[in-house]
């Protein structure tokens, strides 16, 4: 969180931070639901049958690197280098799209194998939690593209920079939620 320029920006940053905290509580409750439901497989497939460690690792790397490239975009924008900032943002969006594509292919494979959200309580909770995160990432990608559009149309004005910092908070926050997802859902699921 680099220093916001005005009191007005500081208020906006606090407001956005409060939103992130409520979103964290929402995710925490989806995590609690998932943990309670892991035993509720209703005779259907378990995490051990469904999850792929290499795919989860690839998704983790994509999001982690994208958090770093977003950081570089923020730094470039702070230096007033609009072109570099836009290139870093586009790279971030590309990594995010790669993540969502991997996740969608996982979901499609599971549904095709008869392990959709309607199969068991465990799978309902899985799709609710991982799907909610995937939707957040998709919204984040959309916002990054809008951000690039604003930078092209308006340049690096003070409002654009303050929006970029808040979008960065959102993007880094989603990576934290993903750490929870691979630690609570995928790794314990793959363990024998």
């Amino acid at each position, binding site marked *: 969180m680099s220093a916001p320029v005005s009191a007005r920006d500081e208020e906006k940053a606090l407001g956005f931070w409060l939103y992130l*905290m409520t979103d964290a*509580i929402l995710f*925490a409750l989806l995590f*609690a639901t998932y943990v309670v439901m892991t035993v509720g497989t209703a005779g259907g497939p378990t995490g051990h049958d469904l999850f792929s*460690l290499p795919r989860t690792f690839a998704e983790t790397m994509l999001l*982690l690197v994208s958090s770093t490239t977003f950081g570089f975009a923020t730094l470039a924008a702070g230096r007033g280098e609009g072109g570099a900032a836009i290139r870093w943002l586009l790279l971030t969006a590309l990594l995010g799209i790669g993540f969502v594509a991997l996740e969608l292919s996982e979901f499609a494979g599971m549904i095709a194998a008869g392990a959709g959200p309607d199969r068991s309580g465990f799978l309902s909770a899985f799709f609710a939690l991982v799907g909610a995160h995937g939707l957040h990432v998709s919204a984040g990608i959309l916002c990054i593209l809008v951000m690039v559009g604003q930078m092209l149309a308006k340049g690096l004005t003070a409002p654009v920079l303050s929006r970029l910092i808040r979008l960065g908070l959102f993007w880094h926050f989603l990576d934290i939620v993903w750490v929870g997802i691979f630690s609570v859902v995928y*790794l*314990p699921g793959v363990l024998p």
Partner: protein
Amino acid sequence: MNEAGARTYLTGLTLALVLTAVPFGIVFAGLVERPAALVVIAAAAILQILVHLRWFLRLDLTRTPRENLLALAFAALLIFIMVGGSLWIMFDLHDRMMM
């Protein structure tokens, strides 16, 4: 200033890579018993979340505005009560139903 900024993100990336490689490596190798593996996964996750808060979200106990830290602490308290309470009640119920 910006040199330091880039170094901050790269430090965060390096630490996060290590804290990701350890739990994935343990599960991939499959050498450790399940309970011990779960402890390592949980410890690595908590450490990695702290790494992300410090080096990606740039939280700092002295420079970050007090209200933001208070909001974070309050959210953590709510999460602890609601998640801890839910798990406690549901698994207690689960055990009693099994008997």
